[in-house]
């Protein structure tokens, strides 16, 4: 193959794919069978990091950036005047294998613009995955994008070779989608998700009865939403996310701050700052709901529609519910411990282990690694000193903000200077 040409294609088609934030290569386990190439241990490895600090674990590319659609938020859209390119199927296979053998990557994440029609596109994505698995005996990670509108039969095949499938919902609200992607239908996104979910359930049931049933998309499916493109609230976003988690058993929902890439009067103008902090707060909320036992309504509701930017959502919740505190570190159950600002899940289990041996005091808590500068206002332990003043939530918030340096404090200084 001609390397210069491949190199040009690679730079175009990697560039076009990079706005997809999902890079997880974890979740699906695949053993190296019969001395083939690669394995997937269920723990993704980040082989390198971009200068913006994102993990690079997969070769993430588009098969082509030719597209018949014209979605406003997407660089690949038909009306955008950019260089177009398309990989041959074998070229993607060769790149994947050669990168993998050199320990550059954990596997492939293949997406595509839609050319001709959904099924034609989906079929070619599947062919790449199939070649990798059957011809190259490749057991590394494969993530395929489900093309909206692809047929059920193709979605069934896709799951046989891919570890994960995803459809990006992109716009959290149906009305936003109508505005920005007028020729795409909401059902087209939903259909492949529904199919993948049903197949996963069906294969799992069959697997219980017949052991040799092949596995279907063992790492499940995920989706991504662009935030900050249509003026939606955090509540809109998180309620949508919760819906997708529940309804389609999503493994992950990703939140991607909108990066203005072309002028369009329906969208934030070019140069608008990427809402990275908001993105971060959404991920924190996502974690609180999935792992910390919070319900969405506790964090976002009609009186509290947007997350605070200056403090994390757990602290914000705690300040709104001061009547529930302080709790006793030596007796509270796991669920309650997890709700204390400054105590993460890892600390919860350490506390529970360590308190079997003695009643814990402040020095123990510090040794375990708890952020006592936050936690101290919400807990008591085996010590006579504890915080006892009755501060209002606002006063307490300021006190905590003063004593903890947020990694975003720079961001705030800049933001504030904008208004002064």
């Amino acid at each position, binding site marked *: 193959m001609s390397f210069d040409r491949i190199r040009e294609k690679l*730079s175009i088609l990697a560039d076009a794919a990079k*706005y997809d934030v999902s890079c997880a290569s974890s979740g699906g386990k695949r053993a190296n069978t019969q001395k083939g190439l690669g394995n997937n241990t269920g723990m993704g490895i980040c082989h390198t990091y971009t200068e913006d600090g994102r993990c690079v674990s997969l070769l993430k590319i588009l098969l082509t950036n030719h597209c018949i659609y014209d979605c406003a938020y997407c660089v690949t859209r038909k009306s955008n005047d950019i260089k177009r390119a398309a990989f041959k199927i074998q070229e993607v296979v060769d790149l994947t294998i050669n990168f993998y*053998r050199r320990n550059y990557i954990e596997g492939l994440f293949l997406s595509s613009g839609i050319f001709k029609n959904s099924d034609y596109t989906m079929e070619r994505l599947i062919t790449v995955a199939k070649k990798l698995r059957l011809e190259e005996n490749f057991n590394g990670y494969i993530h395929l994008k489900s093309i909206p509108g692809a047929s059920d039969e193709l979605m069934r095949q896709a799951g046989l070779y891919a570890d994960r499938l995803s459809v990006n919902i992109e716009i959290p609200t149906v009305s936003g989608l109508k505005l920005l992607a007028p020729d795409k239908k909401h059902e087209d996104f939903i259909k492949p998700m529904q199919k993948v979910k049903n197949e996963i359930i069906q294969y799992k049931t069959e697997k219980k009865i017949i052991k040799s049933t092949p596995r279907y998309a063992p790492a499940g499916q995920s989706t991504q939403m662009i935030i900050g493109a249509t003026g939606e609230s955090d509540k809109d976003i998180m309620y949508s996310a919760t819906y997708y988690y529940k309804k389609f058993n999503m493994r992950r929902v990703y939140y991607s701050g909108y990066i203005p890439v072309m002028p369009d009067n329906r969208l934030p103008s070019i140069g608008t700052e990427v809402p990275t902090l908001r993105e971060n707060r959404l991920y924190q909320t996502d974690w609180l709901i999935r792992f910390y036992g919070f319900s969405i309504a506790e964090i976002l509701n009609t009186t509290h529609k947007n997350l605070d930017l200056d403090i994390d959502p757990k602290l914000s919740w705690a300040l709104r519910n001061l009547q529930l505190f302080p709790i006793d570190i030596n007796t509270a159950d796991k669920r309650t411990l997890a709700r204390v600002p400054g105590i993460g899940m890892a600390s919860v289990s350490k506390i529970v282990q360590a308190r079997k041996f003695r009643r814990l005091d402040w020095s123990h808590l510090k040794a375990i690694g708890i952020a006592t500068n936050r936690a101290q206002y919400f807990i008591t332990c085996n010590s006579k000193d504890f915080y006892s003043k009755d501060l209002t939530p606002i006063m307490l918030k300021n006190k905590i903000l003063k004593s903890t340096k947020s990694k975003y404090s720079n961001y705030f200084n800049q933001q504030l200077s904008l208004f002064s």
Partner: protein
Amino acid sequence: MNPQTILVYDGSFDGFLSCIFIVYDQKIKNPIIRKASQTNNQMFMIVEHIVTEEHKAHRVWKGFKEKTNATQQRDFFKVFLSEIKGVENTLLNYMRHVFEKTHAPSTDFSNKNILKITQVAKMVQREKHRMEAFVRFQLTNDNVYVATVAPDFNVLPLISHHFKDRYADQKWLIYDTTRKYGLYYNLSSVEIITFENSNTISSKNIEKHYNGQERDFQKLWSTYYRSVNITSRKNTKLHLQHIPKRYWKYLIEKTNNS
């Protein structure tokens, strides 16, 4: 003042365990255990050179295994591989603690000794992960995928399994330039190898023997790395937190600017 005994061993894990055997066998109080490569002459000390003896090492390890679980055993080994000066004595104290108690709680994080072991084990574990991530194989014309590393801790014994599992159908070599030994997988098993002449494994010599396409794939990888960057989100602090500069030397995408 009583002279202190210093036990000097060859640096191997078995050698270290042999020292522990001697400590118990000869009831030595407050010994210092050191690698031969780390000692300097000290006055007021009785220096004893300990010969590595497998059966002694095995007896110690067997006893330790009976009182501990798999995680504790792995952590013990990892802490040993840290090669931090004086780590042998921390491990000795820990082992004493284990032997004294009938049931040793590894989860009592408020005990300083255990906390330290857990912390160092974690550091070593992190280095292991980094090596699994940052090793970059270069294909040579005799069809061996070669990588050189210089990890902070002696983690080659810990990563062997991972690479053997993953790259089962290609020959590979991972060489530690600091400790001057490597792992070589010959398509059936992993062997430990050393080179008489360290030039054999110098980056210059490896480059001389590149497979015809090697440079092209390195360029493709660098191209890819540059293309996925999003300039408007640049965050150097975070970047350096993930890949501290001392690891850049491994990374083709960080050194290859063509």
